[in-house]
C-alpha cells in the first residue's frame, strides 16, 4: 500500500496553521494581505462573501417559515383533538408542562385547577406566539 503519511502530516500542519488564524471582523491584516483581499484584485472575495451572507440569511429565514408551518399544524391538530377528546386535554397539558420542566412558568402550578388550566389553553394565542417568535429571531 502506498504510504501517504508524510503528505498527510504536512496537510495537518497547514490545517492547524490556517485554523489558528484570527478570522473575526476585528482581525488586523498586514498591508499586503489587505490589498490581496480587499484591493482591486481581491474584489472576487468581497463579492462572493456578500453572496454567501445573503444565502445564509435566506436559508435561515427558510427555517423560520418551517417553524411557522409546524406551529400552525400543531394548532390545527390541537383543535381536532379537543373536539374528539373533550376533557382529556387538561391531563395531557399537565404532563407536557411537567415533562419539559415548564411548571415554574406558572404560579402555583401544583394547585392549579382544571378550570384554570383550560383558561391557559384557551388563552394560548398562536398568532401572537408566531409574531413573538419572528420578532425575537429578527432581533438576534
Amino acid at each position, binding site marked *: 500500500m502506498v504510504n501517504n503519511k508524510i*503528505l498527510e502530516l504536512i496537510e495537518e500542519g497547514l490545517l492547524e496553521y490556517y485554523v489558528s488564524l484570527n478570522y473575526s471582523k476585528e482581525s488586523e491584516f498586514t498591508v499586503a494581505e489587505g490589498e490581496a483581499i480587499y484591493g482591486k484584485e481581491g474584489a472576487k472575495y468581497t463579492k462572493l462573501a456578500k453572496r454567501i451572507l445573503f444565502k445564509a440569511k435566506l436559508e435561515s429565514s427558510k*427555517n423560520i417559515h418551517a417553524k411557522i408551518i409546524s406551529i400552525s399544524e400543531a394548532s390545527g391538530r390541537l383543535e381536532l383533538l379537543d373536539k374528539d377528546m373533550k376533557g382529556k386535554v387538561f391531563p395531557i397539558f399537565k404532563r407536557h408542562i411537567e415533562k419539559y420542566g415548564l411548571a415554574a412558568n406558572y404560579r402555583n402550578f401544583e394547585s392549579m385547577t382544571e378550570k384554570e388550566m383550560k383558561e391557559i389553553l384557551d388563552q394560548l394565542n398562536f398568532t401572537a406566539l408566531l409574531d413573538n417568535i419572528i420578532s425575537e429571531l429578527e432581533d438576534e
Partner: protein
Amino acid sequence: MEKENSFASRKEVEKELQKLDIPLLLKKLEDYATYLLNDHDRDKAFDIAGQVFDKIITQERKWYEGKSLKSTLFQAAKSLSNNENKKLKRKRQLEVEGIEIEDIAAHDQIGQFDKLSINELKSIAVDLLKNHDPPPDYLEELIFECWIEGITKQREVAQYLEQDIKEVRKGVKRLKRKLDPIKDEFVKMGYGQ
C-alpha cells in the same frame, strides 16, 4: 437523555458567519485548497472555498455544536480537494489508457518508491525543502521537521522549539510557500491522492 452530535441550526450558522471576516476566510481557504489540489489550480481552489460555505449554509455539511466553525470549514475544503484529486487522477488514468509503455513505467516507479521506509521518505522531504529556491530559514526547517515527526499543532510546535507562537506562525507563513514542490515530487513518486 444526553444530547449527542447536535448540530447548529441555519440561524446559528448565519449568526456565526456574520461575526467572521468572510473575504479573509475565502482567501485562506483558497490558499489551503491550492496546496491540496494536485494540479494547484487556483480557480478550482476558489470554487472549492465558495462550495465549502454553501455546504455549511445548506447543512449538507454539518457544523456540530462545540466544534469550531473555521475548523469545520477547512476540513470541508480538505474533503472537496481530495475529491477533486480523485477525479483528476481518474481523468489522467483514462487519458493514458492504452499507452502501455507509460503505464508500465508509472507502475514500476510507484512500486519502487513504495518500498521506501518512512525515515527515507522523511529524509527525501527534508532534502526537497532544503533545496528549495529560495532556501528555507532555520525556523522553517525546524517547523517542517516537527510536522513530519507528527507535531503539527501550532502551540505544540512553539513549545517544542521554545519559540513564541507568533514567531512560529510567521515561520509557517513563509514555509507554506515552499511546500508545493515537495507535494509535487511526492505525487510524482506515487504518493497522495
